[in-house]
């Protein structure tokens, strides 16, 4: 079983739709959860991070962590064509490397 699983998509929605992106993870010890956005032929950029369970909101974006079910989500409200990108969930490994473990990414296209 992979440590982080992510629906690969692709996902196509009309402008203005609410988008839900999801990941599951296997290790209940994980505490730090992130979402990255990656535009075509660019490096990933940090979008949001959350610690432990709960919600965090930033403008049109909401990150949600449910540690009981090992499930993390990113919601995008009022989606825009400029949101079209690949979205990667990531979890920080608290070991010696402090590495990030990434999902495989979900490609999102918001149609105008």
């Amino acid at each position: 079983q992979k440590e982080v699983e992510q629906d690969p998509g692709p996902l196509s929605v009309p402008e203005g739709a609410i988008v839900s992106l999801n990941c599951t993870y296997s290790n209940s010890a994980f505490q730090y959860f992130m979402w990255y956005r990656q535009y075509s032929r660019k490096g990933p950029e940090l979008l949001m991070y959350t610690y432990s369970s709960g919600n965090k909101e930033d403008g049109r974006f909401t990150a949600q962590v449910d540690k009981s079910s090992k499930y993390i989500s990113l919601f995008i409200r009022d989606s825009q064509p400029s949101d079209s990108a690949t979205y990667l969930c990531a979890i920080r490994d608290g070991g010696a490397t402090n590495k990030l473990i990434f999902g495989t990414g979900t490609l999102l296209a918001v149609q105008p």
Partner: protein
Amino acid sequence: IAGITQAPTSQILAAGRRMTLRCTQDMRHNAMYWYRQDLGLGLRLIHYSNTAGTTGKGEVPDGYSVSRANTDDFPLTLASAVPSQTSVYFCASTTPGGYGYTFGSGTRLTVV
């Protein structure tokens, strides 16, 4: 502008040749990482360095080596390239206990 610079942007390399991918950051981050990104497999950690003078192996280190002579530079060397090393390579950095990474724009490498 603070960030990570990777070079070259792209390269076509003959199998068996040696190549060094360059990575320089100007944020004085202690930790640096090399990932490769492949379709369907996501970002996988090759090597990391928690601080200047130290390095460690990630998930897919075979065929790659790194060095960390100073804080700013973290080159990745392919000693004898093989076609399976065709990928997009990303360098990243973070502060100790940092929540997320800053990524470079990537090097697109094709080994033929």
